[in-house]
């Protein structure tokens, strides 16, 4: 079973124009807020009728504006989990889950560990519990397609990590065509098999998350995956390397060939941090004071001059890093990719 869609629809500032095909896998659409991500889900669910478009599941046409086909939302087999979950406040958990189909309510309550909350109202639930109720409610209808709108954004950081793992396992076990939208690349990479980067209504690149990181199609995709983007002018350097005179005053060396204005892409986990310039194979060194230290789980993002490095919490402790300390950030010439300047 595959979900095929083609949408052309004007939004306020730009037009949505995309074509997607989703097999029994999870596709994440990532992009900044207001890129039209939620509109895509609303079109698939039938809550938004695009100016031009086609939505078909395994040959069963749900929408075809040219042929005048527009199946109403209640007759599309879609499970949509809304951003703030949209639970019915006047119904109990059991009433919410049973709204779409009564047959499997007890099984789903059991499966999502909400049996004990069956008679509670949504207002009494925590964020994580609400999310489980919303998922159970969407699945009670036995959908053929699962749509998730920012499934993790309404959760606090702690619950989020836990729910992310559970959700990934759930999506794997369901093996339904799934489209989820998120503005967070890490969530997308964790939850999905394929990631599409949606900007201003267009999909810039669709690829497995690891491939997006390895070879981003353009500077926006690169920055979205969390990379450092350093602008500069490329010219011929020593030993066959390309030297890039960065706008920030430093010079970066890379094995990639280019001349003229470029963006240097460096992933934070390819940057190492030391007290003094290390004697190793890295040719790029940036000596600058630490501007900030931000802890993300057991990793720490260290901002050094124009560059962000990601190191383990243990390394930070071992080196005794503090804001204001002058350190050296280094990365290899093979760790610096070039993209045309945007």
């Amino acid at each position, binding site marked *: 079973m595959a979900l095929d869609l083609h949408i052309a629809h004007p939004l306020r500032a730009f037009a949505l124009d995309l074509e997607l095909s989703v097999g029994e896998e999870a596709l994440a659409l990532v992009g900044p807020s207001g890129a039209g991500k939620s509109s895509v889900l609303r079109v698939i669910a039938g809550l938004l009728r695009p100016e031009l478009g086609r939505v078909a599941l395994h040959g069963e046409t749900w929408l075809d504006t040219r042929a005048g086909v527009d199946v*109403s939302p*209640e007759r599309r087999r879609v499970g949509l989990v809304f951003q703030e979950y949209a639970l019915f406040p*006047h119904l109990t958990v059991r009433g919410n889950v049973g709204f*779409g189909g009564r047959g499997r309510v007890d099984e789903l309550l059991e499966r999502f560990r909400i049996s004990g909350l069956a008679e509670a109202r949504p*207002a009494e639930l925590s964020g994580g519990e609400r999310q489980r109720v919303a998922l159970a409610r969407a699945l009670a209808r036995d959908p053929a397609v699962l749509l998730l709108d920012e499934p993790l954004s309404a959760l606090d950081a702690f619950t989020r990590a836990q729910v992310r793992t559970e959700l990934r396992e759930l999506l794997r076990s369901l093996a339904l065509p799934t489209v989820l939208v998120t503005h967070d690349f890490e969530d997308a990479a964790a939850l999905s098999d394929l990631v599409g980067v949606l900007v201003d209504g267009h999909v810039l690149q669709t690829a497995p998350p690891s491939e997006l990181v390895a070879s981003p199609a353009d500077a926006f995709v690169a920055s979205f995956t969390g990379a450092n983007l350093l602008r500069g002018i490329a010219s011929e350097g020593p030993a066959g390397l390309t030297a890039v005179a960065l706008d920030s005053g430093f010079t970066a060396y890379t094995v990639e060939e280019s001349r003229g204005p470029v963006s240097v892409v460096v992933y934070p986990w390819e940057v190492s941090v030391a007290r003094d310039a290390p004697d190793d194979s890295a040719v790029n060194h940036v000596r600058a004071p630490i501007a900030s230290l931000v802890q993300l789980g057991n990793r720490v993002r260290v901002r050094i001059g124009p560059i962000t490095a990601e190191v383990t919490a243990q390394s930070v402790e071992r080196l005794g890093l503090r804001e204001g300390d002058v350190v050296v950030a280094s990365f290899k010439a093979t760790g610096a990719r070039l993209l045309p300047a945007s």
Partner: protein
Amino acid sequence: MLTLLELPLVLPPAVAGIGLLAAFGRLGLLGGTLQVFGLEVGLGTQAAVVLAIAFVAGPFYVRPAVAAFEAVDPTLLGAARTLGAGPGRTFFRVALPLAAGGLSAGAALSFARGLGEFGATIMFAGSLQGVTQTLSLAIYQEFDLNFDSALAISALLVLVSAALLLSVKLVAGWRSTYTSLIPFARSPSISS
């Protein structure tokens, strides 16, 4: 359309009575037409009392009712649709229960306004004891004849009104325990 419905809110009740008389009375614009169908709503009929009170008090229901439906989160309606509910089921299972607070507030408000209706009723339906005389009209009549019975009727209306207000507040409190979306508490102040 809504503005037209709200006209009676600002119209002096006596003017509303005259207007109704001119429209539906025996010699009014539509009076003749209604008589053809065997309907008579002129002076001295109970139908006239109902019409006059509905005309004046109706708008007190309409505004909170519209506000109550507007306050229902459209996402919830969308959610109901994706869960397999057609427009009808979505209305009865989601929109109506969520708007119920505002609807009953509007109903109570308009009932209270109707209870005290005086001007339009006496102009349009008259004050015939046992036929068109409402409690409010009776107070006016007894005020001249027997002050004690006017007091007694007034006391009765005080009780009814207080009970009404209390029940509105109770329902509001009960509703707001599960959602804050319903603009129940502020609805009564809209038209005052």
